């Protein structure tokens, strides 16, 4: 059964006269206790999709379409309704841990306030739950009274994870959880998230530009380019036989695959190219690509691609 279904989601901003189409009719489904990876380059709108799900977008935004969480459309929930879901049903780990923690509150308080607010728990009981949570993410509970500036980058990331998982949400969204960490801490964080997600049988939406991390964690991968999803497939299919030319180039650009380069730059969201967004940089371009905009078509079981090479959409 699908935990979260995103249907034709459109997220538009108007900035300096131009409308920025950050998310352009996105269809995506996250199943029960599955890890879905959302991969894309900087500025392709993947973080915005993550924040749109929990309604954390700035107020000058126009949102269309539906986001159904267990048969309840989140987008037309009232602010109170949405607030009930955040943290309880859908947790989110924001991108930059060193700025995302309140510098004047101890990390213990910042976690226990979730328990005291959502389940109006007593102070003592909340403290016990917080200690248990800190232990689970590998932080010594005795450091509960310390402040964010006394923790290293990796440790702050663990505090964010503890905050996201405090109320055992059904779905966890992790936005670039390993960015800026050195290799050893990165592996530790990856193992921690996988272990927690599996034994709490939750689903995880992992947002990252680092394919190596996605390989180690995800069951399924969705590749995003210029505000829209261009390929969805299981990790095995994506690695063994990527279909969309962009996914192929992305995988070939990995150091392991010889850093083969692709010309051009990723387009700006405010003035994307006509027709298929990737046509200016595509190797196997055909006439149709320049004018018409391809739809996301399902080719084999569970794999869908947005390209004219496959199926005659």
């Amino acid at each position, binding site marked *: 059964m699908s935990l979260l279904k995103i249907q034709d989601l459109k997220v538009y901003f108007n*900035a*300096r006269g131009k409308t*920025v189409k*950050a998310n352009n009719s996105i269809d995506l489904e996250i199943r029960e206790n599955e890890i879905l990876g959302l991969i894309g380059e900087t500025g392709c709108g993947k973080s915005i999709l993550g924040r749109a799900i929990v309604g954390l977008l*700035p107020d*000058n935004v126009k949102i269309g379409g539906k986001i159904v969480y267990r048969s309840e459309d989140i987008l037309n929930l009232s602010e109170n309704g949405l607030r009930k879901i955040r943290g309880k049903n859908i947790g989110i780990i924001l991108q930059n841990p060193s700025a995302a923690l309140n510098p004047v509150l101890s990390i213990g308080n910042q976690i226990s306030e979730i328990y005291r607010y959502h389940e109006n728990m007593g102070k003592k009981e909340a403290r016990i739950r917080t200690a248990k949570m800190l232990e689970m993410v590998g932080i010594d509970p005795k450091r509960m009274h310390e402040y964010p500036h006394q923790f290293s980058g990796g440790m702050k990331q663990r505090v964010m994870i503890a905050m996201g998982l405090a109320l055992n949400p059904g779905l966890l969204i992790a936005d670039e959880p390993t960015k800026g960490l050195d290799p050893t801490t990165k592996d530790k964080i990856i193992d921690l998230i996988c272990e927690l997600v599996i034994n709490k049988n939750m689903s995880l939406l992992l947002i990252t530009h680092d394919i190596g991390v996605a390989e180690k964690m995800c069951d399924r991968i969705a590749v995003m380019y210029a505000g829209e999803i261009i390929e969805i497939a299981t990790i095995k299919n994506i690695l063994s036989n990527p279909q969309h030319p962009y996914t192929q180039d992305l995988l070939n650009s990995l150091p392991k695959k010889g850093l083969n380069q692709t010309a051009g730059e990723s387009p700006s969201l405010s003035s994307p190219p006509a027709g298929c967004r990737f046509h200016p940089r595509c190797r196997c371009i055909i006439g149709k690509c320049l004018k018409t905009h391809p739809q996301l078509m399902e080719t084999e079981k569970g794999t869908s691609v947005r390209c004219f090479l496959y199926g005659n959409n």
Partner: protein
Amino acid sequence: MKILNNEINILKEAGNNRMAAIGGAIVIMLTLIAILASLLSPHDPFEQKLENRLLNPCFEYPFGTDDLGRCIFSRLIFGTRYSLAIGVTVVGITALVGTSLGIVSGYSRGIIDEIIMRIVDIVLAFPGIILALVIAGILGPSFLNVVIALSLTHWPAYTRLVRGLTLTLREMDFIEGAKALRASNIYIMRRHILPNCINPIIVLATLDIAHAIIFATALSFLGLGIQPPTPEWGSMLKAGIPYFRISPHLTFFPGTAIMVTVLAFNFLGDGLRDMIDPKINENILVSE
């Protein structure tokens, strides 16, 4: 996501350049009044007609006359010259001195930085107008002494602001890159650090002109600034106090003139600040 943040920030502050426009318009109007003072004023500001003394505002004298029968309207117009002149000269000197000291102390970080910052602390140890008051009092009342008094006490605001900016700029890679090119320190300060400080300095200078005008009129109000008969708003205000009960307009018009001028510069400064650099807030400006 980075691209989006930039665009949102710019959008948010677009509304405030209306403020800068209004402030700018009034400032330009005031400068024109100052320049064309002799053309605009209906009477000679120094000519005393004792027979029509303390007249209320009427057709002949739009703002009435003062205790010596001089036309207040004309004196106010000429007064613009002094206020703007003091504001601009004081800010010109303090911005120059303060900025260069700020860059040098921020960039060199060694003993020089310690010395400059200790001098700043000492000058700032005297709150607000006290030091300026004493210096003006001792040197004796005159235009030049007011400028000296205010300049000696106003420069630390710039030094603090610019030093803060230089400290952050100094850590950026493009300064290390310039050093790797073996560019001289002076070149780096002139070509890399100064251009990145110009905008915040402009904002601070605009707000500081407003500040300097208030301080200058305050000194004249206390009789330590520009002395009568020169038509300076502060001294006109002071001259109007003995006649406060019977003809309050003697104090009302100079007071409004000061407020309007200061308001204009504050408007301009606020508008510029929101457009350029919202980080400069009262803390740095008023702490001197």
